């Protein structure tokens, strides 16, 4: 991390941009305020406070100027507005989970290919409507239960093997996904591997808040796949909600 207030480098085109434009402006303003505060603290002989403000200010000014935050880079997230196609180094959130289900690849493919079924296996989805043979309209539960919507199209479709899709250009939240079906050995059915890539709405903040609210996306996807397996194999998902318990009075 650049030392505070000292090594502010001019914008380097080779450094990946991972801070969105609005955030850059805000960072510059806050950085300026912090820098002024640092100077004033020095003049009032409060070196510790000055040091802290210099550090904060320096970070803010750096990211505001260059559009690059080493912290974001370390977290693997970005609030940059550019699409992924133009900047392969910018980070988004990716999940990959696998589960084995005692059903044939064609059966599971058939279930998945009808995207109206997807809310059963991605619990962050409210519903999916079909537009035509390859396009669909998705409505998600989004952040703090505010709905987020987008259109998606199927880009790869091999029956019994793989389906992949991506959100259309101009979508509110960019995302793409794929599901692969592979026969599992020893009569164990099908191994499904799901990959989801998305840029959370409102950038980094969205994912962070979701995590705080207890909805860790990776764990959700794992649980969703588990529920799919339970539904497919037994026709129900196990529960203990609604069963009796004591109060220990």
């Amino acid at each position, binding site marked *: 991390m650049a030392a505070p207030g000292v090594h502010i480098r001019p914008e380097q085109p080779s450094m990946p941009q991972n801070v969105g434009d609005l955030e850059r402006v805000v960072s510059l303003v806050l950085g300026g305020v912090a820098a002024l505060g640092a100077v004033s603290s020095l003049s009032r002989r409060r070196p510790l406070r000055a040091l802290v403000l210099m550090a904060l200010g320096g970070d803010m000014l750096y990211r505001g100027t260059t559009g690059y935050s080493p912290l974001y880079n370390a977290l693997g997230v970005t609030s940059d507005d550019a699409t992924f196609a133009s900047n392969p180094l910018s980070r988004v959130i990716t999940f990959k989970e696998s589960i*084995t289900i*005692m059903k044939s690849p064609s059966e599971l493919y058939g279930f998945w290919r009808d995207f109206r079924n997807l809310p059963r296996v991605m619990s962050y989805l409210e519903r999916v409507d079909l537009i035509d043979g390859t396009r669909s309209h998705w409505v998600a539960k989004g952040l703090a239960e505010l709905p987020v919507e987008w259109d998606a199209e199927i880009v790869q479709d091999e029956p019994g093997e793989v389906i992949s899709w991506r959100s259309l250009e101009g979508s509110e939240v960019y995302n793409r996904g794929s599901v692969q079906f592979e026969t599992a050995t020893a*009569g*164990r*059915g099908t191994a499904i591997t799901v990959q989801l890539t998305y840029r959370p709405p409102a950038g980094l903040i969205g994912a962070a808040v979701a995590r705080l609210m207890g909805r860790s996306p990776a*764990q959700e996807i*794992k*649980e969703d796949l*588990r529920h799919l*397996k*339970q539904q497919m*194999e*037994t*026709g*129900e*998902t*196990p*529960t*203990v*909600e*609604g*069963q*009796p*318990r*004591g*109060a*220990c*009075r």
Partner: protein
Amino acid sequence: MKAVTWCGKKDVRVADVEDPKMLRPHDAIIHVTRAAICGSDVHLYDGCVPTMKKGDILGHEAVGEVVEVGKEVYNLAPGDRVAVPSPISCGQCWYCKQGLWSLCDNTNPNAWMMEKAYGQSTAGIFGYSHMFGGYAGSQAEYVRVPFANVGPLKLPKEVTYEQALTLSDVFPTGYQAAEACNIHSGDVIAVWGCGPIGQFAVRSAFMLGAARVLAVDNDPARLELAAKAGAEIADFSKACVHSQLMEATGGRGPDACIDAVGLEAHGTTPDAVYDTIKVAARMGTEHAHALREAIMTCRKGGTISIIGVYAGLVDRFPIGAAFNKGLTFRMGQAHVHRYMRPLLDRILSHQIDPSFIFTHRFALDDAPKAYEMFSKKQDNCIKAMLQP
């Protein structure tokens, strides 16, 4: 209804709770006529098992009468007498289809919890902490039984509820422990722990062709009960177990060793004391003295069959001894469903009357007294039955 609830370490209370409801199409509601307390319930009572919550209903051994069945249950009808196996298994996943019922993929609503602890999740169990599903147990007047189309065994009128109660857990468990020894005719089997599991392990070992069974414990009543089945006893309070068993086997060691003790093993040897200190300092959870002893005593190339419950991590595990002696380890929670029918047949053909194991009977209301007596082995209590 009345139910036995866990309210903290060494604190069980009989409480008035709601009757269970049908929650899924494969459920059934059973009116419990007899329930039992298991040695592993004592682990819960002693506070050894994490993820318990105050108010949890205990119990995983029960028999009774079907009261209500879900719309996907075709094999049972109200009025049927049944024994309910302790693990909850779906019957459809790969593990259930392999007969590995206690490893079912689909019956733990808290699978994520066990995955974190163990890598993958196993089957839910009645009344056995939230890591195992948080299911309400059967030490109560009624119990909701998920996957009733798979678990409960219909009982013919020739078998009593008391006999059948042993089929829900304790007899299949002891039998599995003995079966895991891969007994060849003429083998000498040693069993650590003469509690209910050990008692059935002793008897099952003979059923499966063992020539001799050596039973290890320090409780006189339990040793006597094992001797009644034909076992030779080794009292660990009298002399070193290793020496006793080596002498009894001409210096070879037993062909297979059953650990029917599990994580609350007692002992005063240095390794046992080490365990005690670690557990007291909350730096460990397991007392593995019996297991270590079994490893050191077992003959070269022999089998260690672990049926006593373990939950966490263990220190000072003699992996060197186990490796160099080429031991085979087999272990796990009992696949109860697999054994219920064959063992019922043995009861019906009068090969064994398993109800001998119940030394004490209590009304459900007296459950706190029953737990205390059973956990302290007072009054020669070997197994306690509860009658709602």
